[in-house]
């Protein structure tokens, strides 16, 4: 029986967007067990609900995470609107979907760059991030901020985009789709990358269902679940929506699923821009949240996010909780790491797309 050593991984590592610590129990070059440790970025944001009223709290939800920023304000607004029975104008729903899908494109491009960096392909890393700058410029032109948009609010959106600018955005996105295709081809068809990705980090469909995994991590193992297919909000206006899945279940499948989602998002944005109606963009809420509990769900780039809201009749909420996809996927990640080699550890951690600052609000 060979000797066991413990190697610490993180919290600082070039491949991680946010800090997480893992103790890897190794036998020679194989990982026998991985023990996660979190808590480096816990800021206690849920307690702020007692001092910020429900309209101002949307600014706190935006600042939970930099990559998933718009998604959190979108989900929070949707949940409060359902609790209070507010109807949002159609144009606001379309605009929200456009910004949300742009947010998905920028998150997947960021992830593709990090994935390329994790096995040493720095040229592809920078090309992906260079393409992402076009999306951040669109954000800044329309809302004024590159990362924190402050665009979504309870009752609608804060900024309007006029139709000529929308046509310009449609052109930019079509060009982005054409320019993203060589990068996706490099990531998916290159022989040396395929040698690294195919066959490593395998998770079967039964394990994915038992560990209740969500997001592209689960869709790559054959679980066909995506909140966008239930047609909530602006997604009900799409002609058809089919989630991208794969049955292979290894790292290659996860890369392929995210690349396909990126191309699908470009199509969704162009479809929404063609169909957008005219009208107001905001319906001011009246009164306070009632004494009731409510659940809202949204499909973020990393998976399904669940928002639980409890009101008590005053303008401060009683309780607000976000359940992020990474908190479910950590269990799957620990499963993936058992039995892999040390050089595969960064890639296996990155395939779940960890967003630790959302997880540990």
């Amino acid at each position, binding site marked *: 029986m060979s000797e066991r050593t413990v190697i610490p991984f993180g919290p600082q590592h070039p491949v991680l967007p946010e800090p997480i610590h893992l103790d890897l129990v190794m036998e020679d070059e194989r990982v026998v067990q991985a023990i996660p440790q979190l808590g480096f970025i816990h800021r206690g944001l849920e307690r702020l609900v007692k001092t910020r009223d429900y309209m101002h709290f949307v*600014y706190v939800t935006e600042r939970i995470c930099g990559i998933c920023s718009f998604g959190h304000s979108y989900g929070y607004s949707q949940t409060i609107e359902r609790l209070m029975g507010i109807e949002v104008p159609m144009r606001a729903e379309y605009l929200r979907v456009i910004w949300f899908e742009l947010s998905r494109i920028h998150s997947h491009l960021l992830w593709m760059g990090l994935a390329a960096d994790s096995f040493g392909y720095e040229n*592809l890393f920078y090309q992906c991030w260079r393409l992402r*700058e076009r999306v951040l410029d669109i954000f800044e*032109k329309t809302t004024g901020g590159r990362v924190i948009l402050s665009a979504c609010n309870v009752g609608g959106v804060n900024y309007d985009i006029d139709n000529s600018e929308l046509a310009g955005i449609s052109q930019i996105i079509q060009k982005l789709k054409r320019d993203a295709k060589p*990068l996706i081809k*490099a990531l998916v068809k*290159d022989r040396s990358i395929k040698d690294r990705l195919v066959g490593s980090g395998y998770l079967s469909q039964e394990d994915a269902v038992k560990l209740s995994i969500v997001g592209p991590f689960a869709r790559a193992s054959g679980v066909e679940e995506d909140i966008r297919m239930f047609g909530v909000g602006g997604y009900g206006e799409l002609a058809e929506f089919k989630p991208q899945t794969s049955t292979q279940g290894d790292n290659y499948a996860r890369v392929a699923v995210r690349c396909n989602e990126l191309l699908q998002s470009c199509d969704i944005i162009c479809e929404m821009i063609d169909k957008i109606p005219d009208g107001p963009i905001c319906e001011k809420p009246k009164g306070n949240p009632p004494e009731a509990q409510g659940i809202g769900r949204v499909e973020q780039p990393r998976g399904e996010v669940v928002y639980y809201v409890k009101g008590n009749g005053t303008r401060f909420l009683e309780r607000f909780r976000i359940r992020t996809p990474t908190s479910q996927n950590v269990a799957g990640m620990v499963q993936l790491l058992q039995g892999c080699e040390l050089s595969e550890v960064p890639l296996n951690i990155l395939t779940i797309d960890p967003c630790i600052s959302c997880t540990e609000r």
Partner: protein
Amino acid sequence: MSSFSLFGTSLKNLFSKPATKMYPAKPFEPFEATRGHVSIDIEKCILCGLCHRSCPVGAITVVREDKSWSIDALRCITCNDCVSRCPVSCLTMEVQYMPIAIGESISTFVKPEPKEEPEVEAEAGSEEEAELEAETEVEAEAEPE
């Protein structure tokens, strides 16, 4: 299966201009909608206090007795709430980011008194005030005659 897929792109990038903006050699050009900092046209302000109540972080303070409006630039999150709620549109969101501040970052503006010819500022010297008072006294005496 292919190898060296990015060879064409890399060769093209070698002979084209850089992707980054050459700052600080060239100046920083923000977009029109960029949220940099909040500024006020103090003459139009009616001291209603709506911006003070709507600021989510408490960066703005309005004191009616002193007729002053002050903002703490380090606390401001440029959310645009105050600008959209002002009933007389005296607040604007400028595009330039504020320069780096160390220590105090509060800027205070005092609303000038109406119908005085030169502006009476809080830092004005006593000589100027004395001159103004002399002028207005002469006018007050001249009127009833």
